[in-house]
């Protein structure tokens, strides 16, 4: 952001009338001087409202309400007008309820330090200190990701532990099986590897072969049993037929065979006559006979042959059963031969150990070996023999099958276990690598973060200490530690160096003034870091009340030197010394705009006036018409005293001691006489093109001639400038003018035309002004640096 050009405040705090402050944008520093109650804090509060939406000095005050107490007494929030203009931009602040808002919302970077806040950075709790610095070290998003990485590493560790547990369990289980199996091989894993490599498909095939063999044997046994059953039925049928024949043979009377035959014929005739319609004639001889008579005759005769007819039926049934039994025997016989041939087939190139061991040869079964046996009896005998042999092997087949099944189960089980052992071993190795890598990555991220934030904190502490050393040179006081508290979240610990001790809390040992300057340096270091684009406006609200005059000069010099890092530095003070440092050119008066606030009242509001350099005021008074000799003599005398006092102090000249530490002009001139004999002002020379030489060349100038002339006119200061007396009245205006002119000449000769400062920045060989080399003006009076030391 550019420098603030204008601030307009109305009806806000003490600005009971419209206040307009026009800032000189050519000057990096603005000094607002005013005694207490002239409106300095109102101006700072207005800037704070624009830059930070802050209620400013009311922020920390209890029993105050923004809406009631920010408006000037008797005014309403809506009456408030605060406006800041900078280049083409302008911002307005308004109060709604108790909240201040700035429009536009993207506010200018105005940072305010108040006296009441000065020591807070130093005295704050670690958490509050972190809060103040968190903009510069807040890496919360990285910390979130870092925590996720830590979780990943922990999770991988848990996975690894689980994998190790599984591996141990699998190893133990395998070991147990190995021991049960009699510890074959060198160790459990090697044994398991060998077992797992076995071909279970072959074992499965053997089991299938044995199952087929068993089932074939069982089928053959069934076929044989069924044949034998069928043969038994045939035998029984034969016996039944024989028994009926014997019963027939025992029948009395006529030829039984014929009677049985006749009964059969009559039975059929009777059935024939019962079915359908017939004429009245015999169906055999065609003799005419009534049909009813014929039917009755047949029935009568059948009744007579009933016994024979029953035996006929019995004999026919027995014969039929026998025939069926024979047919069944034939079928069962065929089935038996098929089953026996199947058995015989299994013996061909049989790989089943049990069958091979039985020594069954196909040649021993010639009929079965044929596709169709020729001699059934032989075939039957061979079948029965073969089945008998195989029946005897059945238990062995079952046992062999069980043994192979058991072996297959064992191989499968060991294979699973071996694979588990191997998988767990691999997983353990992989997880161990992953966990180690995640841990290393976590440590990398963590350490990088800590180093990163610590580097920033070191830079802040280092800058703070550098600034502090400028204000308090040669004092072994500094911040020794500014570090994140690793054990806590968002906590920043701090320690200081004091009297050789490097780890003390500064608030416990530092004086009030030292704490103030330390707090100021800390704050300035932070704001400077924020102002990387030289875009922060620094506002110091009457901050240095506890600091003595010597250190105020150091701070003024520091602010001048550091002002190039900021958009603008605005200092408010009630200390006249601040104003005089610039006004009398002990500081960079030409780089500083001076505004003086005077006499606030509710009706008049805040009054402000531009303050000029004392030398400029003197020049103006010399040029004024009519010439005011008293003013000119007085102003020249005061300016001369200010210059001589400054130089006497800077070079530690011997000045006659007085009770109250105040010196007359004559005493100061006497005291600095030896200084002016040696004192040279060195101004940078420039070439024909107006450029500085590199390395720089300096043109020396001795101001002794001016002071020698002044010496004879010093009486004018009192006689004309301060008192009414006859001798003063006798002094001519030209003498007064000469005195004033010589004073102006001395001030201009000694000061830098650019920054306006009489060189006061100490180096080992000279004092220099606030301009950067090679444009700086130097004061040189020999070495050692001070007259006191030289004498």
């Amino acid at each position, binding site marked *: 952001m550019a420098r603030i050009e204008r601030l307009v405040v109305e009806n806000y705090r003490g600005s009971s009338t419209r206040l307009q402050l026009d800032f000189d944008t050519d000057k990096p520093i603005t000094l607002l001087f005013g005694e207490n109650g002239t409106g300095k804090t109102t101006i700072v509060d207005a800037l704070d409202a624009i830059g930070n939406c802050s209620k400013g000095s009311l*922020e920390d005050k209890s029993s105050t309400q923004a809406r009631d107490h920010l408006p000037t007494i008797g005014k309403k929030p809506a009456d408030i007008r605060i406006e800041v203009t900078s280049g083409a931009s302008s911002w307005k602040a308004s109060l709604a309820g108790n909240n201040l808002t700035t429009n536009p919302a993207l506010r200018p970077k105005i940072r305010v330090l108040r006296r009441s*806040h000065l020591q807070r950075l130093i005295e704050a709790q670690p958490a509050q200190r972190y809060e103040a610095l968190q903009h510069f070290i807040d890496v919360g998003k990285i910390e*979130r990701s870092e925590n996720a990485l830590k979780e990943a590493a922990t999770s991988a560790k848990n996975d690894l532990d689980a994998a190790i547990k599984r591996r141990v369990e699998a190893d133990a289980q395998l070991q147990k099986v190995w021991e049960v199996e009699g510890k074959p091989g060198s160790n459990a894993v090697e044994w398991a590897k060998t077992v797992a490599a076995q071909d279970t498909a072959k074992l499965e095939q053997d089991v299938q072969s044995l199952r087929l063999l068993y089932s074939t044997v069982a089928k053959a046994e069934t076929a044989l049993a069924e044949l034998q059953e069928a043969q038994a039925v045939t035998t029984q049928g034969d016996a039944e037929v024989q028994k009926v024949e014997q019963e027939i043979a025992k029948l009395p009377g006529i030829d039984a065979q014929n009677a049985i035959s006749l009964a059969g014929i009559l039975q059929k005739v009777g059935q024939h006559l019962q079915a359908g319609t017939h004429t009245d004639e015999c169906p055999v001889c065609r003799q005419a006979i009534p049909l009813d008579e014929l039917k009755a005759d047949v029935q009568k005769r059948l009744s007579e042959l009933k016994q024979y007819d029953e035996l006929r039926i019995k004999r026919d049934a027995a014969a039929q059963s026998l025939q069926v039994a024979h047919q069944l025997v034939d079928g069962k016989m065929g089935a038996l031969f098929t089953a026996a041939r199947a058995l015989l087939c299994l013996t061909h190139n049989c790989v089943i150990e049990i069958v091979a061991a039985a020594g069954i040869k196909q040649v021993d079964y010639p009929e079965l070996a044929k596709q169709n046996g020729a001699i059934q009896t032989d075939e039957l005998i061979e079948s029965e023999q073969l089945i008998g042999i195989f029946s005897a092997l059945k238990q062995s087949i079952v046992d062999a099958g069980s043994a192979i099944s058991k072996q297959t189960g064992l191989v499968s089980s060991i294979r699973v276990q071996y694979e588990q052992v191997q998988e767990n071993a691999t997983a353990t190795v992989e997880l161990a690598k992953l966990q180690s890598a995640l841990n290393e990555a976590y440590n990398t991220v963590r350490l990088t973060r800590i180093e990163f934030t610590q580097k920033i904190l070191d830079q802040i502490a280092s800058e703070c200490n550098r600034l502090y050393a400028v204000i308090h040179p040669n004092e072994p006081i500094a911040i020794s530690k500014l570090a994140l508290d690793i054990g806590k979240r968002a906590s920043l610990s701090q320690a200081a160096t004091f009297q050789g001790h490097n780890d003390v809390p500064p608030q416990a040992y530092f004086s009030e003034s030292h704490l103030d300057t330390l707090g100021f340096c800390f704050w300035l270091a932070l704001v400077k870091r924020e102002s990387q684009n030289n875009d922060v406006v620094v506002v110091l609200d009457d901050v240095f009340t506890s600091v003595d005059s010597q250190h105020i000069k150091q701070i003024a010099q520091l602010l001048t030197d550091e002002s190039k890092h900021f958009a603008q530095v605005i200092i408010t003070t009630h200390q006249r010394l601040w104003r005089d440092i610039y006004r009398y050119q002990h500081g960079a008066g030409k780089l500083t705009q001076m505004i003086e606030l005077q006499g606030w009242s509710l009706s008049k509001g805040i009054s402000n006036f531009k303050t000029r350099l004392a030398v400029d005021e003197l020049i103006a008074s010399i040029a004024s018409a009519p010439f005011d000799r008293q003013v000119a003599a007085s102003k020249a005398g005061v300016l001369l005293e200010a210059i001589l006092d400054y130089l006497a102090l800077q070079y530690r000249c011997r000045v006659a001691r007085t009770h109250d530490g105040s010196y007359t002009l004559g005493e100061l001139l006497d005291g600095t006489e030896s200084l002016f004999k040696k004192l040279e002002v060195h101004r940078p020379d420039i070439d024909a093109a107006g450029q500085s030489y590199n390395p720089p060349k300096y043109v020396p100038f001795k101001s002794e001639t001016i002071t020698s002339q002044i010496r004879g006119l010093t009486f004018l200061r009192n006689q004309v400038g301060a008192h009414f007396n006859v001798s003063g009245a006798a002094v001519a205006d030209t003498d007064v003018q000469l005195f004033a002119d010589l004073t102006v000449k001395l001030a201009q000769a000694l000061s830098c035309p650019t920054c306006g400062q009489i060189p006061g920045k100490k180096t080992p060989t000279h004092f220099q002004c606030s301009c950067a080399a090679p444009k700086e003006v130097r004061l040189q009076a020999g070495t050692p640096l001070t007259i006191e030391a030289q004498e």
Partner: protein
Amino acid sequence: MNEPTIVITAEVLPTPTPNDALADLVVAKLKEKGFVADGKDAEISAKLKAGTANREDWTLWIDLAQSKKQKDVENGEN
């Protein structure tokens, strides 16, 4: 009494933000140590800057980088 506040605020953070600057630094460090597989820089950097890298992301990233390392070793041996 009100809690004392420290008057340092900044609406516009330094560019890049500390978080972004650190994210770039972290990715560079991880890469230096072989924890970033080829082509993953941008993804890791983006998630670090957004603060959204989770456990699964890290496991995947590191696993990928480890696999690549392992492959390189094997290829070297071959």
